[in-house]
């Protein structure tokens, strides 16, 4: 047997799959590994973030990784001056995203400390007030974004434009609305990170203390002590449960039984005497709670409940059936809180004097800042991006109607900056009185790009590039992505490891045996059967409604603070995250044993 590798291949030695040649041109020049920079790029370790970006990027979709990564970095590097960590550099290779944390040179760290104390200190002192301010701005941006429209340029400008001396035509609005759409998205991504890393470092402080006071304390124990039970992330699912209960209470259950679409259900319910009450509740729940995606908000094709009512209605139908079979629909909130208090109480009892005070102080702060870590995801990734993609798609449909391409989603094959000249092309043809050039140019180009993206999607990404550091100690790398020194060793494949045992983070406790169902796209969720074990590259909080059906979750990537881990703990479902290769190693139908307390998945067949 060969001795284990200590290094991953270089991206420069990792060519694209056949048919994807020329893929680099689909993405911004600063995001691909440039040939003339090989030396410096190969000196860095890059890991694939398939947790947030499990699929190949279409050109427009780069906006998510760009906005997210850059804004994360700015808060570390330029706002709070986090002493040991700057931002996280990123590249796109073979269509997938790779991160490389940027450390601060040791000699520069001491000078950063006073700035961090002052700036982060201000946020910790004024957390509640600043958070309220955050909410106001985020919601205002969403509202403004929601009000943007993209309309076809008219045959003639309205008469009022002339009589009121407006002095410009609707192309001005078209251009400004497009630019404003991008700007507002950027502003909310800036807001996304305003508190996030401060929440993480407060958590890390508590985490480090627990590891010192209680050597080898399970990571899960620490997470459980801090988590709340009422994140706004779970509200959409809670709303569906309420609607299901209401339907049963109003005697409407039969109307839901055989319908196969939301429209059918609504038609049947409308005929019932108490139907109007239910329909009013259904409509009221949608804003904002149906701004919720079964994807993760980073892809233009992510399905949102508000736009695809069949999806949430299907969950409601499922809940009605389960309630009728005697199942309790609520999340076990009381139990979760009781367990949280038991755990914190028992660890606290082991301490006395200053250590006990420190424990309570750090725990208190971690609990105060933690809700943001969960909640922000709803406001930005779900709600903001839901509105964003809806607007992008509406623009895409408009341009399709104008003949620029033939599919609704073809706009995604352009980068956001290519849309501007296209809008000018459209406005120009309209203004000059000819046809725009786009309809004879873009279809072929989009077809070419479609082939390239499809070719890239044939291969799963390499987990990492180049030599990993001896120790991973950048806090966010560890906590959010679950990239630890251990994890990296596992990816490299240790000698003598049992190939039927996958190891990962013990993200949510409990052990179960069952049949695997490998899910690689949210569309497959309907295939899940009761009691199966969900195996996926990554899961999303909006998959919540299926968590009542499954017996355990296994993911490829994700740390203790990943959404998969958080959701599983909330729902009391065992989970092992960050296995690296579960979705590519396990096949549907295999019998597994998942131990969420030990962090192992055993293939039993």
């Amino acid at each position, binding site marked *: 047997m060969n001795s284990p590798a200590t290094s991953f291949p270089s991206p420069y030695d990792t060519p694209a799959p056949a048919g994807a040649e020329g893929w680099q041109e689909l993405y911004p020049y600063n995001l691909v590994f440039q040939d003339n920079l090989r030396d410096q790029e190969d000196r860095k370790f890059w890991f694939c973030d398939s947790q947030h970006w499990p699929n190949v990027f279409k050109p427009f979709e780069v906006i998510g990784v760009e906005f997210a990564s850059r804004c994360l970095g700015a808060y570390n590097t330029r706002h709070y001056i*986090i002493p040991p960590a700057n931002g996280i550099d990123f590249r796109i290779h073979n269509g997938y995203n790779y991160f490389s944390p940027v450390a601060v040179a040791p000699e520069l*760290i001491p000078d950063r400390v006073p700035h961090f104390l002052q700036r982060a200190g201000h946020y*910790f002192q004024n957390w509640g007030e600043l958070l309220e301010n955050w909410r106001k701005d985020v919601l205002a941006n969403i509202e403004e974004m929601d009000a943007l429209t993209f309309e076809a340029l008219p045959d003639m400008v309205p008469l009022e434009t002339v009589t009121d001396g407006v002095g410009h035509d609707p192309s001005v609005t078209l251009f400004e609305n497009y630019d404003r759409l991008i700007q507002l998205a950027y502003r909310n991504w800036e807001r996304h990170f305003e508190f996030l890393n401060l929440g993480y470092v407060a958590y890390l402080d508590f985490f480090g203390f627990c590891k010192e006071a209680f050597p080898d304390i*399970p990571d899960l124990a620490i997470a459980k002590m801090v988590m709340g039970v009422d994140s706004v992330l779970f509200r959409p699912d809670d709303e569906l449960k309420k609607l299901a209960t209401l339907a049963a209470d109003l005697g409407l259950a039969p109307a839901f039984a055989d319908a196969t679409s939301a429209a059918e259900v609504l038609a049947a319910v409308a005929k019932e005497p108490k139907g109007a009450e239910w329909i009013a509740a259904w409509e009221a729940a949608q804003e904002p709670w149906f701004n919720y995606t079964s994807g993760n908000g980073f892809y233009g094709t992510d399905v949102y409940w508000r736009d695809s009512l069949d999806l949430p209605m299907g969950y409601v139908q499922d809940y009605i059936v389960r309630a009728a079979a005697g199942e309790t629909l609520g999340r076990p909130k009381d139990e979760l809180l009781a367990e949280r208090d038991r755990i914190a109480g028992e660890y606290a009892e*082991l301490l006395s004097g200053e250590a006990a005070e*420190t424990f309570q102080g750090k725990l208190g702060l971690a609990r105060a800042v933690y809700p943001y870590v969960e909640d922000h995801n709803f406001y930005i990734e779900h709600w903001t991006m839901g509105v964003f993609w809806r607007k992008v798609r509406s623009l895409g449909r408009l341009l399709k109607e104008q003949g620029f391409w033939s599919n609704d989603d073809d706009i995604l094959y352009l980068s956001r900056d290519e849309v501007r000249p296209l809008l000018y092309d459209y406005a120009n043809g309209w203004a000059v009185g000819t046809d725009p050039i786009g309809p004879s140019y873009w279809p072929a180009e989009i077809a070419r790009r479609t082939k390239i993206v499809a070719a890239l999607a044939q291969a799963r990404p390499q987990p990492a590039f180049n030599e990993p550091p001896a120790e991973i100690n950048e806090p966010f790398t560890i906590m959010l992505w679950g990239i630890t020194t251990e994890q990296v060793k596992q990816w490299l494949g240790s000698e003598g490891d049992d190939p039927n045992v996958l190891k990962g983070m013990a993200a949510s*406790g409990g052990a179960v045996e069952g049949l695997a169902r490998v899910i690689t796209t949210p569309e497959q969720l309907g295939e899940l059967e009761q009691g199966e074990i969900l195996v996926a590259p990554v899961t999303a909080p909006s998959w919540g409604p299926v968590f009542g059906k499954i017996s355990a979750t296994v993911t490829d990537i994700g740390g203790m603070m990943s959404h998969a881990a958080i959701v599983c703990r909330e729902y009391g479902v065992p989970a092992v995250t960050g296995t690296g290769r579960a979705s590519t190693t396990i096949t549907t139908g295999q019998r597994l044993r998942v131990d969420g307390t030990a962090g192992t998945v055993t293939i039993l067949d």
Partner: protein
Amino acid sequence: MSLLTDYTFAFDRTDEAAHEQLGGKCRSLVIMTNAGMPVPPGFAITTKAFDAVMDQTSLRADIAAVLDGLDTDDTAEVDARAARIRELIMAQPVPEAVRDATLHAYQQLMDLCGGEVPVAVRSSATAEDLPDASFAGQQDTYLWILGRDNVLQKVRECWASLYTSRAIVYRAANGITDEGLSMAVAVQKMVNARTAGVAMTIDPANGDRSKIVIDASWGLGELLVSGEVTPDNFRLDKVMMSVVGRVIGDKHEELVPTPDGTLVRREVEPERRTAPSISDDELVTVAGLAKAAERHHGCPQDLEWAIDADLPPGQNVLLLQSRPETVWSQKSTTQVTSSGYGVEAITKSLLAQLNRS
């Protein structure tokens, strides 16, 4: 209350269990049984019984005479005098009342067990297991004793074990006088142990109170306790009850009962030597017992437990003994370097995180 019931004390008796009457071991067994823990049934022969035997004649004075002027550094002399005293005790007549009480309690135990079963006979001294003494005597535990006459014989031998050389020297060195020295004896149903071991509700390596540490090996626990077998070692987090460390030992020998009613010490076959002697479910059960025992006593415990091959899963983990842990409980709790909370503390943590590499 008649004298009869003062000489014996069944473990499930609900009257107050006094240390002077029962000694540390028996008292603990009574408390644990009454707390609803899975303790094999049995009874104590109380210190009052021992006193009744010793006080029938001038035996105590005779013993004092034998010990008078003993130089405890003269091991040959100590051995000789200790042997002489033990002879005296073995020959001492037992009052009718004590004998009747013992036989009655023994019969009740056999009835409870559905017929004659082997028992363990163990001494439970009032001086031996004082909280700050970690001395545990040898020659004071007899296993797999079948039949009442054998049991009575072993009870006497337990009484006599108060005067082993080691015990005499230990008391002399620690200033424990013979005045009022007394002993109880535990008679307890033997466990047909598939696996047995010890558990501590504190990490014996460093005093970490957030752990339960369990050692386990095949058969009865005696080989493990005496250090003659390298056991499996497990560390569990006490709050989460999850295994945080495990080392499987080379369990080369085991002490097991044979079909003909004796104990045999034999080699373990290769496959079982390096296979875990306890499942994770059973580990959690043992840990649960240890945690409950600690809570009940209000201090860290040192337990002996066994898994009975004759009982069904879920009911087969038994508690044999629980006594206060003596080494770390006296010391101060863990020192942590991280203190305070808020941005200064957070900054220190961030920097400390780096220095860990």
